[in-house]
Protein backbone atom coordinates (compact mmCIF):
# COMPACT_ATOMS: atom_id res chain seq x y z
CA UNK A 1 0.00 0.00 0.00
CA UNK A 2 1.32 3.40 -0.91
CA UNK A 3 -0.23 4.97 2.18
CA UNK A 4 -0.74 3.16 5.44
CA UNK A 5 -3.95 3.04 7.42
CA UNK A 6 -3.62 2.68 11.16
CA UNK A 7 -6.21 1.52 13.68
CA UNK A 8 -5.73 3.84 16.63
CA UNK A 9 -8.54 2.77 18.94
CA UNK A 10 -11.08 -0.06 19.21
CA UNK A 11 -14.09 -0.69 21.43
CA UNK A 12 -16.82 -3.26 21.89
CA UNK A 13 -19.78 -3.70 24.17
CA UNK A 14 -20.50 -6.87 26.07
CA UNK A 15 -22.41 -9.22 23.76
CA UNK A 16 -25.67 -10.34 25.32
CA UNK A 17 -29.42 -9.98 25.07
CA UNK A 18 -30.11 -6.33 25.82
CA UNK A 19 -33.88 -5.95 25.46
CA UNK A 20 -33.86 -2.86 27.68
CA UNK A 21 -31.15 -1.01 25.79
CA UNK A 22 -31.97 1.35 22.93
CA UNK A 23 -29.86 1.10 19.74
CA UNK A 24 -28.79 4.68 20.31
CA UNK A 25 -27.33 3.74 23.68
CA UNK A 26 -25.37 0.86 22.15
CA UNK A 27 -23.91 3.11 19.47
CA UNK A 28 -23.17 5.84 21.96
CA UNK A 29 -21.32 3.48 24.26
CA UNK A 30 -19.02 2.06 21.58
CA UNK A 31 -18.36 5.28 19.65
CA UNK A 32 -17.83 7.41 22.77
CA UNK A 33 -15.34 4.83 24.02
CA UNK A 34 -13.02 5.19 21.01
CA UNK A 35 -13.45 8.97 20.96
CA UNK A 36 -12.43 9.09 24.63
CA UNK A 37 -9.41 6.85 24.03
CA UNK A 38 -8.09 9.20 21.35
CA UNK A 39 -9.45 12.49 22.64
CA UNK A 40 -10.91 13.05 19.17
CA UNK A 41 -14.16 14.84 18.41
CA UNK A 42 -15.81 15.70 15.11
CA UNK A 43 -14.14 18.80 13.74
CA UNK A 44 -14.42 20.74 10.52
CA UNK A 45 -10.89 22.09 10.60
CA UNK A 46 -9.07 18.81 9.99
CA UNK A 47 -8.02 18.34 13.62
CA UNK A 48 -10.61 15.71 14.54
CA UNK A 49 -12.69 12.94 12.99
CA UNK A 50 -13.47 13.68 9.35
CA UNK A 51 -16.11 11.10 8.51
CA UNK A 52 -18.09 8.09 9.69
CA UNK A 53 -18.70 4.68 8.17
CA UNK A 54 -21.42 2.66 9.86
CA UNK A 55 -22.71 -0.83 9.41
CA UNK A 56 -26.02 -2.21 10.57
CA UNK A 57 -28.87 -3.97 8.83
CA UNK A 58 -31.95 -1.80 9.38
CA UNK A 59 -34.53 -4.46 8.46
CA UNK A 60 -32.95 -6.78 11.03
CA UNK A 61 -33.41 -4.40 13.89
CA UNK A 62 -36.62 -2.53 13.14
CA UNK A 63 -35.88 1.14 12.85
CA UNK A 64 -33.63 2.65 10.25
CA UNK A 65 -31.12 2.12 13.01
CA UNK A 66 -27.97 3.42 11.43
CA UNK A 67 -29.75 6.17 9.54
CA UNK A 68 -31.87 7.41 12.39
CA UNK A 69 -29.50 7.29 15.28
CA UNK A 70 -25.97 7.36 14.13
CA UNK A 71 -25.57 10.90 12.91
CA UNK A 72 -26.45 12.56 16.15
CA UNK A 73 -25.24 9.83 18.46
CA UNK A 74 -21.64 9.95 17.37
CA UNK A 75 -21.65 13.63 16.47
CA UNK A 76 -21.53 12.97 12.75
CA UNK A 77 -24.53 15.24 12.19
CA UNK A 78 -24.14 17.39 9.05
CA UNK A 79 -20.97 15.56 8.15
CA UNK A 80 -19.96 12.81 5.78
CA UNK A 81 -21.62 9.72 7.11
CA UNK A 82 -21.58 6.56 4.98
CA UNK A 83 -23.58 3.35 5.41
CA UNK A 84 -22.67 -0.26 4.78
CA UNK A 85 -25.53 -2.74 4.99
CA UNK A 86 -23.33 -5.83 4.89
CA UNK A 87 -20.96 -7.48 7.28
CA UNK A 88 -19.08 -4.97 9.44
CA UNK A 89 -15.72 -5.92 7.93
CA UNK A 90 -16.90 -4.13 4.79
CA UNK A 91 -17.33 -0.93 6.81
CA UNK A 92 -13.69 -1.23 7.92
CA UNK A 93 -12.71 -1.77 4.29
CA UNK A 94 -14.69 1.30 3.26
CA UNK A 95 -13.16 3.40 6.04
CA UNK A 96 -9.67 2.30 5.00
CA UNK A 97 -10.50 3.23 1.40
CA UNK A 98 -11.58 6.71 2.54
CA UNK A 99 -8.15 7.19 4.08
CA UNK A 100 -6.13 5.46 1.34
CA UNK A 101 -7.73 7.73 -1.22
CA UNK A 102 -6.70 10.77 0.78
CA UNK A 103 -10.34 11.78 1.10
CA UNK A 104 -10.22 11.62 4.89
CA UNK A 105 -7.42 11.57 7.46
CA UNK A 106 -9.41 10.14 10.34
CA UNK A 107 -12.52 7.96 10.12
CA UNK A 108 -14.83 6.56 12.76
CA UNK A 109 -16.14 3.09 11.91
CA UNK A 110 -19.06 1.78 13.97
CA UNK A 111 -21.45 -1.13 13.77
CA UNK A 112 -24.34 -2.47 15.79
CA UNK A 113 -26.65 -5.43 15.85
CA UNK A 114 -29.93 -5.76 17.75
CA UNK A 115 -31.05 -9.32 17.17
CA UNK A 116 -33.45 -9.29 20.12
CA UNK A 117 -35.77 -7.01 18.16
CA UNK A 118 -36.70 -9.42 15.35
CA UNK A 119 -36.95 -13.05 14.29
CA UNK A 120 -34.16 -12.76 11.77
CA UNK A 121 -35.17 -15.77 9.65
CA UNK A 122 -38.21 -13.74 8.59
CA UNK A 123 -35.90 -11.16 7.07
CA UNK A 124 -33.13 -13.46 5.83
CA UNK A 125 -35.65 -15.35 3.75
CA UNK A 126 -36.21 -12.14 1.80
CA UNK A 127 -32.51 -12.08 0.85
CA UNK A 128 -33.00 -15.10 -1.42
CA UNK A 129 -34.06 -14.99 -5.04
CA UNK A 130 -37.64 -13.77 -5.13
CA UNK A 131 -38.83 -15.91 -8.04
CA UNK A 132 -37.00 -19.20 -7.58
CA UNK A 133 -35.79 -19.63 -4.00
CA UNK A 134 -37.99 -17.81 -1.49
CA UNK A 135 -40.98 -20.00 -2.21
CA UNK A 136 -38.93 -23.12 -1.52
CA UNK A 137 -38.31 -21.79 1.99
CA UNK A 138 -34.59 -21.16 1.69
CA UNK A 139 -32.95 -18.77 4.12
CA UNK A 140 -29.42 -18.42 5.53
CA UNK A 141 -29.73 -21.43 7.84
CA UNK A 142 -31.04 -23.78 5.17
CA UNK A 143 -28.50 -22.50 2.64
CA UNK A 144 -25.80 -23.25 5.20
CA UNK A 145 -27.21 -26.74 5.68
CA UNK A 146 -26.94 -27.39 1.94
CA UNK A 147 -23.34 -26.20 2.03
CA UNK A 148 -22.50 -28.23 5.13
CA UNK A 149 -23.85 -31.40 3.54
CA UNK A 150 -22.00 -30.81 0.28
CA UNK A 151 -18.71 -29.88 1.96
CA UNK A 152 -18.63 -32.74 4.45
CA UNK A 153 -19.63 -35.26 1.80
CA UNK A 154 -17.11 -34.16 -0.80
CA UNK A 155 -14.15 -34.08 1.57
CA UNK A 156 -15.14 -36.62 4.22
CA UNK A 157 -15.25 -34.08 7.06
CA UNK A 158 -16.61 -35.85 10.15
CA UNK A 159 -19.25 -34.67 12.67
CA UNK A 160 -16.61 -35.08 15.39
CA UNK A 161 -14.25 -32.69 13.62
CA UNK A 162 -17.03 -30.11 13.35
CA UNK A 163 -18.00 -30.58 16.99
CA UNK A 164 -14.41 -29.83 17.98
CA UNK A 165 -14.79 -26.39 16.38
CA UNK A 166 -17.61 -25.58 18.78
CA UNK A 167 -15.78 -26.99 21.78
CA UNK A 168 -12.75 -24.82 20.93
CA UNK A 169 -14.92 -21.70 20.45
CA UNK A 170 -16.67 -22.02 23.80
CA UNK A 171 -13.43 -22.85 25.61
CA UNK A 172 -11.76 -19.75 24.16
CA UNK A 173 -14.80 -17.61 25.01
CA UNK A 174 -14.21 -18.34 28.70
CA UNK A 175 -11.20 -16.02 28.46
CA UNK A 176 -13.22 -13.26 26.83
CA UNK A 177 -15.22 -11.02 29.18
CA UNK A 178 -17.26 -9.66 26.23
CA UNK A 179 -18.41 -13.09 24.99
CA UNK A 180 -22.04 -14.22 25.23
CA UNK A 181 -21.67 -18.03 25.45
CA UNK A 182 -18.82 -19.62 27.31
CA UNK A 183 -20.33 -22.85 28.60
CA UNK A 184 -18.15 -25.95 28.79
CA UNK A 185 -19.16 -28.30 26.02
CA UNK A 186 -17.80 -31.70 25.06
CA UNK A 187 -17.77 -33.17 21.57
CA UNK A 188 -20.57 -35.48 22.73
CA UNK A 189 -22.63 -32.54 24.02
CA UNK A 190 -22.46 -30.95 20.58
CA UNK A 191 -23.27 -34.17 18.75
CA UNK A 192 -26.21 -34.88 21.06
CA UNK A 193 -27.73 -31.40 20.70
CA UNK A 194 -31.00 -30.99 18.80
CA UNK A 195 -30.89 -31.06 15.01
CA UNK A 196 -31.48 -27.52 13.77
CA UNK A 197 -31.26 -27.98 10.03
CA UNK A 198 -29.76 -31.27 8.93
CA UNK A 199 -26.73 -31.72 9.29
CA UNK A 200 -26.35 -28.60 11.46
CA UNK A 201 -27.17 -29.07 15.14
CA UNK A 202 -28.27 -26.31 17.51
CA UNK A 203 -24.88 -26.11 19.23
CA UNK A 204 -23.16 -25.85 15.85
CA UNK A 205 -24.95 -22.62 14.94
CA UNK A 206 -24.35 -19.08 16.12
CA UNK A 207 -26.29 -18.49 19.35
CA UNK A 208 -29.09 -16.00 18.83
CA UNK A 209 -30.43 -13.45 19.65
CA UNK A 210 -27.50 -11.32 20.77
CA UNK A 211 -27.07 -7.54 20.80
CA UNK A 212 -23.94 -5.43 20.75
CA UNK A 213 -21.83 -2.78 19.06
CA UNK A 214 -18.22 -2.23 17.99
CA UNK A 215 -16.27 0.88 17.02
CA UNK A 216 -12.84 1.69 15.60
CA UNK A 217 -10.97 4.84 14.69
CA UNK A 218 -8.81 4.64 11.58
CA UNK A 219 -6.20 7.25 10.67
CA UNK A 220 -3.57 7.87 8.04
CA UNK A 221 0.01 7.01 8.95
CA UNK A 222 1.08 10.45 10.08
CA UNK A 223 -1.93 10.98 12.35
CA UNK A 224 -1.99 7.39 13.58
CA UNK A 225 1.54 7.73 14.93
CA UNK A 226 0.56 10.88 16.81
CA UNK A 227 -2.70 9.48 18.16
CA UNK A 228 -1.36 6.30 19.71
CA UNK A 229 1.86 4.61 20.75
CA UNK A 230 0.47 1.32 19.49
CA UNK A 231 -1.00 1.76 16.02
CA UNK A 232 -2.15 -1.40 14.26
CA UNK A 233 -1.61 -1.22 10.52
CA UNK A 234 -4.03 -2.51 7.92
CA UNK A 235 -1.60 -4.09 5.48
CA UNK A 236 -4.01 -5.78 3.09
CA UNK A 237 -7.73 -5.74 2.40
CA UNK A 238 -9.98 -7.31 -0.19
CA UNK A 239 -13.47 -8.65 -0.67
CA UNK A 240 -15.12 -10.89 -3.22
CA UNK A 241 -18.69 -11.82 -4.08
CA UNK A 242 -19.62 -15.26 -5.36
CA UNK A 243 -22.81 -16.10 -7.26
CA UNK A 244 -25.89 -15.40 -5.21
CA UNK A 245 -27.56 -18.51 -6.71
CA UNK A 246 -26.42 -21.51 -4.72
CA UNK A 247 -26.70 -23.81 -7.71
CA UNK A 248 -24.15 -21.81 -9.69
CA UNK A 249 -21.44 -22.67 -7.18
CA UNK A 250 -19.91 -25.85 -5.87
CA UNK A 251 -20.79 -25.24 -2.23
CA UNK A 252 -18.00 -27.58 -1.11
CA UNK A 253 -15.51 -24.88 -1.99
CA UNK A 254 -15.44 -21.16 -1.32
CA UNK A 255 -13.92 -19.61 -4.42
CA UNK A 256 -14.78 -16.03 -3.45
CA UNK A 257 -12.84 -16.42 -0.22
CA UNK A 258 -9.83 -17.78 -2.14
CA UNK A 259 -9.92 -14.66 -4.31
CA UNK A 260 -10.45 -12.20 -1.44
CA UNK A 261 -7.64 -13.78 0.58
CA UNK A 262 -5.13 -13.96 -2.26
CA UNK A 263 -5.67 -10.29 -3.12
CA UNK A 264 -5.33 -9.17 0.49
CA UNK A 265 -2.23 -11.34 0.97
CA UNK A 266 -0.66 -9.97 -2.19
CA UNK A 267 -1.18 -6.43 -0.92
CA UNK A 268 0.38 -7.36 2.42
CA UNK A 269 3.21 -9.47 0.97
CA UNK A 270 1.98 -12.62 2.70
CA UNK A 271 3.04 -15.81 0.91
CA UNK A 272 2.56 -18.49 3.57
CA UNK A 273 -0.45 -17.43 5.64
CA UNK A 274 -0.38 -20.35 8.06
CA UNK A 275 3.24 -19.67 9.00
CA UNK A 276 3.14 -15.90 8.82
CA UNK A 277 0.04 -15.06 10.83
CA UNK A 278 0.23 -15.33 14.61
CA UNK A 279 -3.49 -15.15 15.23
CA UNK A 280 -6.72 -15.20 13.21
CA UNK A 281 -10.32 -14.18 13.88
CA UNK A 282 -12.61 -15.92 11.41
CA UNK A 283 -16.39 -15.48 11.12
CA UNK A 284 -17.90 -18.95 11.42
CA UNK A 285 -21.67 -18.78 11.78
CA UNK A 286 -21.83 -22.60 11.72
CA UNK A 287 -19.24 -25.16 12.77
CA UNK A 288 -18.55 -26.45 9.23
CA UNK A 289 -17.55 -22.95 8.15
CA UNK A 290 -14.38 -22.85 10.22
CA UNK A 291 -12.59 -25.70 8.38
CA UNK A 292 -14.07 -24.57 5.06
CA UNK A 293 -12.89 -21.00 5.61
CA UNK A 294 -9.44 -22.34 6.66
CA UNK A 295 -9.25 -23.82 3.18
CA UNK A 296 -10.45 -20.67 1.46
CA UNK A 297 -7.99 -18.59 3.45
CA UNK A 298 -5.16 -20.87 2.36
CA UNK A 299 -4.35 -21.99 5.91
CA UNK A 300 -4.50 -25.58 4.61
CA UNK A 301 -5.21 -27.38 1.35
CA UNK A 302 -8.65 -28.13 -0.08
CA UNK A 303 -10.47 -30.72 1.98
CA UNK A 304 -7.83 -30.51 4.74
CA UNK A 305 -9.80 -28.28 7.12
CA UNK A 306 -10.99 -31.19 9.26
CA UNK A 307 -7.44 -32.47 9.69
CA UNK A 308 -6.27 -29.00 10.70
CA UNK A 309 -8.93 -28.98 13.44
CA UNK A 310 -7.78 -32.44 14.56
CA UNK A 311 -4.16 -31.32 14.71
CA UNK A 312 -4.95 -28.80 17.47
CA UNK A 313 -2.74 -26.24 15.73
CA UNK A 314 -5.56 -23.68 15.71
CA UNK A 315 -6.23 -23.95 19.43
CA UNK A 316 -4.83 -21.49 21.97
CA UNK A 317 -1.16 -22.38 22.33
CA UNK A 318 -1.09 -23.90 18.85
CA UNK A 319 0.87 -22.61 15.87
CA UNK A 320 -1.98 -20.37 14.67
CA UNK A 321 -4.70 -19.82 17.26
CA UNK A 322 -7.99 -19.18 15.49
CA UNK A 323 -10.70 -17.19 17.29
CA UNK A 324 -9.17 -16.66 20.73
CA UNK A 325 -12.26 -14.49 21.36
CA UNK A 326 -14.58 -17.46 20.91
CA UNK A 327 -15.77 -16.00 17.62
CA UNK A 328 -19.23 -16.00 16.18
CA UNK A 329 -20.03 -19.45 17.61
CA UNK A 330 -19.86 -17.94 21.07
CA UNK A 331 -22.41 -15.30 20.11
CA UNK A 332 -21.17 -12.37 18.02
CA UNK A 333 -24.24 -10.96 16.25
CA UNK A 334 -24.93 -11.03 12.55
CA UNK A 335 -23.57 -8.03 10.59
CA UNK A 336 -21.12 -7.20 13.37
CA UNK A 337 -18.99 -10.34 13.18
CA UNK A 338 -16.34 -9.19 10.70
CA UNK A 339 -15.89 -5.82 12.41
CA UNK A 340 -15.54 -7.68 15.68
CA UNK A 341 -12.82 -9.84 14.06
CA UNK A 342 -10.84 -6.68 13.23
CA UNK A 343 -11.37 -5.28 16.74
CA UNK A 344 -10.12 -8.51 18.33
CA UNK A 345 -7.11 -8.71 16.01
CA UNK A 346 -6.24 -5.10 16.86
CA UNK A 347 -6.41 -5.90 20.58
CA UNK A 348 -4.12 -8.91 19.99
CA UNK A 349 -1.57 -6.81 18.11
CA UNK A 350 -1.66 -4.12 20.80
CA UNK A 351 -1.05 -6.78 23.45
CA UNK A 352 -4.34 -5.81 25.11
CA UNK A 353 -6.34 -9.01 24.68
CA UNK A 354 -6.21 -9.96 28.36
CA UNK A 355 -6.57 -13.65 29.12
CA UNK A 356 -7.11 -14.46 25.46
CA UNK A 357 -3.83 -12.80 24.39
CA UNK A 358 -1.63 -14.70 21.91
CA UNK A 359 1.82 -13.83 23.23
CA UNK A 360 3.90 -11.61 20.99
CA UNK A 361 1.40 -11.55 18.12
CA UNK A 362 2.78 -9.49 15.22
CA UNK A 363 0.55 -10.34 12.28
CA UNK A 364 -3.17 -11.04 12.36
CA UNK A 365 -5.85 -12.18 9.97
CA UNK A 366 -9.42 -10.87 10.22
CA UNK A 367 -12.32 -12.22 8.20
CA UNK A 368 -15.97 -11.35 7.66
CA UNK A 369 -18.72 -13.05 5.70
CA UNK A 370 -22.25 -12.30 4.56
CA UNK A 371 -24.96 -13.64 2.26
CA UNK A 372 -26.26 -17.19 1.85
CA UNK A 373 -23.61 -19.93 2.22
CA UNK A 374 -20.72 -17.48 2.34
CA UNK A 375 -21.47 -15.48 -0.77
CA UNK A 376 -19.43 -12.44 0.28
CA UNK A 377 -16.07 -12.67 1.99
CA UNK A 378 -13.88 -9.86 3.23
CA UNK A 379 -10.27 -10.43 4.32
CA UNK A 380 -8.23 -7.87 6.26
CA UNK A 381 -4.58 -8.41 7.23
CA UNK A 382 -3.08 -6.51 10.12
CA UNK A 383 0.35 -5.89 11.57
CA UNK A 384 1.72 -4.02 14.58
Amino acid at each position, binding site marked *: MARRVGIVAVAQTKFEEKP*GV*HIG*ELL*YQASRDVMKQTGLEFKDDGTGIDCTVASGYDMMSGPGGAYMFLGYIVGA*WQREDERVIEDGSMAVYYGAAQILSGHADVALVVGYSKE*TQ*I*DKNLIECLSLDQIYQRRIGLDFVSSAALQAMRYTTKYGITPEQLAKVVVKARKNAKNNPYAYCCDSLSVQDVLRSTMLCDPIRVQEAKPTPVDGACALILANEEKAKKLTKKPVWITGVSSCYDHHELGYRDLADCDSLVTAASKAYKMAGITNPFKEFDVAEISEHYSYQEPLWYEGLGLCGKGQGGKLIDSGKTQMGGELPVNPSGGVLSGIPHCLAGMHSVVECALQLRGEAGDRQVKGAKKALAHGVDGPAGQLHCVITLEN
Partner: protein
Amino acid sequence: MLKKEEPQDPSVAFRYPRVITYKHSLGYQSKFAHALKMGRIIATKCPVDGRCTIPPRIVCPMHHVKQTEWVDQGQRGKLLSAFKINFPMFDSRTGDLKSWETPIVSIELEGGARMDGWCSETDTEKLKPGMVLEAVWRPAEERQGRVDDILYWKPV
Protein backbone atom coordinates in the same frame (compact mmCIF):
# COMPACT_ATOMS: atom_id res chain seq x y z
CA MET B 1 -35.27 -20.17 -27.79
CA LEU B 2 -38.88 -19.35 -27.23
CA LYS B 3 -41.10 -19.48 -30.27
CA LYS B 4 -43.02 -16.34 -30.93
CA GLU B 5 -46.38 -17.91 -30.27
CA GLU B 6 -45.31 -19.22 -26.83
CA PRO B 7 -46.64 -17.03 -24.03
CA GLN B 8 -44.11 -14.73 -22.39
CA ASP B 9 -45.58 -13.48 -19.12
CA PRO B 10 -44.34 -10.00 -18.29
CA SER B 11 -44.53 -10.51 -14.55
CA VAL B 12 -45.59 -12.87 -11.83
CA ALA B 13 -47.38 -11.78 -8.66
CA PHE B 14 -46.44 -13.28 -5.28
CA ARG B 15 -48.06 -12.24 -2.03
CA TYR B 16 -45.94 -12.30 1.12
CA PRO B 17 -48.43 -12.61 3.93
CA ARG B 18 -46.46 -12.50 7.16
CA VAL B 19 -46.49 -10.80 10.49
CA ILE B 20 -43.27 -9.04 11.37
CA THR B 21 -43.06 -8.18 15.02
CA TYR B 22 -40.27 -5.89 16.11
CA LYS B 23 -39.60 -5.64 19.82
CA HIS B 24 -38.18 -2.13 19.85
CA SER B 25 -36.02 -1.62 22.91
CA LEU B 26 -36.98 1.71 24.45
CA GLY B 27 -34.07 2.08 26.83
CA TYR B 28 -33.86 5.69 28.00
CA GLN B 29 -36.95 6.50 25.88
CA SER B 30 -39.15 4.46 28.20
CA LYS B 31 -39.63 7.66 30.24
CA PHE B 32 -41.36 9.24 27.27
CA ALA B 33 -43.60 6.20 26.76
CA HIS B 34 -44.51 6.11 30.43
CA ALA B 35 -45.42 9.82 30.37
CA LEU B 36 -47.79 9.20 27.44
CA LYS B 37 -49.62 6.61 29.54
CA MET B 38 -50.01 9.32 32.16
CA GLY B 39 -51.38 11.74 29.56
CA ARG B 40 -48.20 13.84 29.51
CA ILE B 41 -45.77 14.82 26.79
CA ILE B 42 -42.16 15.16 27.91
CA ALA B 43 -38.99 15.90 25.97
CA THR B 44 -35.24 15.81 26.54
CA LYS B 45 -33.53 19.19 26.91
CA CYS B 46 -30.14 20.29 25.61
CA PRO B 47 -27.89 21.63 28.38
CA VAL B 48 -26.19 23.97 25.88
CA ASP B 49 -29.06 25.94 24.35
CA GLY B 50 -32.08 24.58 26.20
CA ARG B 51 -33.79 23.26 23.08
CA CYS B 52 -36.16 20.35 23.72
CA THR B 53 -36.35 17.36 21.40
CA ILE B 54 -39.02 14.81 20.49
CA PRO B 55 -38.21 12.04 19.82
CA PRO B 56 -36.21 12.29 23.03
CA ARG B 57 -32.48 11.85 22.42
CA ILE B 58 -29.68 10.44 24.52
CA VAL B 59 -27.41 13.21 23.22
CA CYS B 60 -28.32 16.56 21.70
CA PRO B 61 -28.41 16.11 17.93
CA MET B 62 -26.91 19.56 17.47
CA HIS B 63 -24.31 19.92 20.23
CA HIS B 64 -23.48 16.29 20.91
CA VAL B 65 -23.69 16.60 24.66
CA LYS B 66 -25.59 14.15 26.82
CA GLN B 67 -29.20 15.16 27.52
CA THR B 68 -30.31 14.11 30.97
CA GLU B 69 -33.02 16.63 31.78
CA TRP B 70 -36.67 15.95 30.90
CA VAL B 71 -39.11 18.81 30.49
CA ASP B 72 -42.93 18.74 30.44
CA GLN B 73 -44.14 20.11 27.13
CA GLY B 74 -47.69 21.01 28.18
CA GLN B 75 -50.89 20.02 26.37
CA ARG B 76 -50.99 22.75 23.74
CA GLY B 77 -48.89 23.88 20.81
CA LYS B 78 -48.75 26.11 17.77
CA LEU B 79 -49.44 24.70 14.34
CA LEU B 80 -46.36 24.74 12.12
CA SER B 81 -47.76 22.97 9.07
CA ALA B 82 -50.60 20.68 8.04
CA PHE B 83 -51.45 18.47 5.12
CA LYS B 84 -54.01 15.91 4.06
CA ILE B 85 -53.29 12.74 2.10
CA ASN B 86 -55.73 12.71 -0.80
CA PHE B 87 -55.11 9.16 -1.96
CA PRO B 88 -55.35 5.79 -0.20
CA MET B 89 -52.30 5.22 2.02
CA PHE B 90 -51.15 2.32 4.16
CA ASP B 91 -52.05 2.35 7.79
CA SER B 92 -48.77 1.09 9.27
CA ARG B 93 -50.70 -0.27 12.26
CA THR B 94 -52.93 -2.60 10.24
CA GLY B 95 -51.17 -2.97 6.89
CA ASP B 96 -54.40 -1.97 5.11
CA LEU B 97 -54.90 0.71 2.52
CA LYS B 98 -57.22 3.37 3.84
CA SER B 99 -58.29 6.89 3.05
CA TRP B 100 -57.19 9.47 5.58
CA GLU B 101 -59.84 11.99 6.55
CA THR B 102 -57.76 13.62 9.25
CA PRO B 103 -54.90 15.92 8.29
CA ILE B 104 -51.41 15.33 9.67
CA VAL B 105 -50.07 18.31 11.59
CA SER B 106 -46.67 19.41 12.83
CA ILE B 107 -46.81 21.30 16.13
CA GLU B 108 -44.43 23.33 18.27
CA LEU B 109 -45.40 22.53 21.84
CA GLU B 110 -45.54 25.00 24.72
CA GLY B 111 -42.26 23.51 25.98
CA GLY B 112 -40.56 24.15 22.64
CA ALA B 113 -40.26 20.60 21.29
CA ARG B 114 -41.88 19.73 17.98
CA MET B 115 -44.02 16.71 17.25
CA ASP B 116 -46.46 15.38 14.68
CA GLY B 117 -49.99 14.06 15.00
CA TRP B 118 -53.48 14.04 13.52
CA CYS B 119 -55.90 16.95 13.58
CA SER B 120 -59.66 16.87 14.24
CA GLU B 121 -60.26 19.75 11.80
CA THR B 122 -60.63 18.01 8.45
CA ASP B 123 -60.91 21.21 6.42
CA THR B 124 -57.28 22.13 5.77
CA GLU B 125 -58.39 25.62 4.66
CA LYS B 126 -59.17 26.32 8.31
CA LEU B 127 -55.72 25.23 9.50
CA LYS B 128 -53.49 28.31 9.72
CA PRO B 129 -49.87 28.30 10.90
CA GLY B 130 -49.61 29.76 14.38
CA MET B 131 -53.07 28.67 15.53
CA VAL B 132 -53.22 26.89 18.88
CA LEU B 133 -54.06 23.19 19.07
CA GLU B 134 -54.72 21.02 22.11
CA ALA B 135 -54.06 17.31 22.63
CA VAL B 136 -57.07 14.98 22.92
CA TRP B 137 -56.14 11.72 24.59
CA ARG B 138 -57.44 8.19 24.59
CA PRO B 139 -59.10 7.22 27.88
CA ALA B 140 -56.36 6.47 30.45
CA GLU B 141 -57.14 2.75 30.56
CA GLU B 142 -56.62 2.43 26.81
CA ARG B 143 -53.23 4.15 26.65
CA GLN B 144 -50.25 1.99 25.80
CA GLY B 145 -47.35 4.42 25.85
CA ARG B 146 -47.45 4.98 22.12
CA VAL B 147 -47.74 8.26 20.21
CA ASP B 148 -51.27 7.41 19.09
CA ASP B 149 -52.32 7.59 22.74
CA ILE B 150 -52.95 11.16 21.57
CA LEU B 151 -56.04 10.59 19.44
CA TYR B 152 -55.77 13.94 17.68
CA TRP B 153 -55.08 17.65 18.10
CA LYS B 154 -58.06 19.97 18.35
CA PRO B 155 -58.11 23.68 17.51
CA VAL B 156 -58.65 25.72 20.70
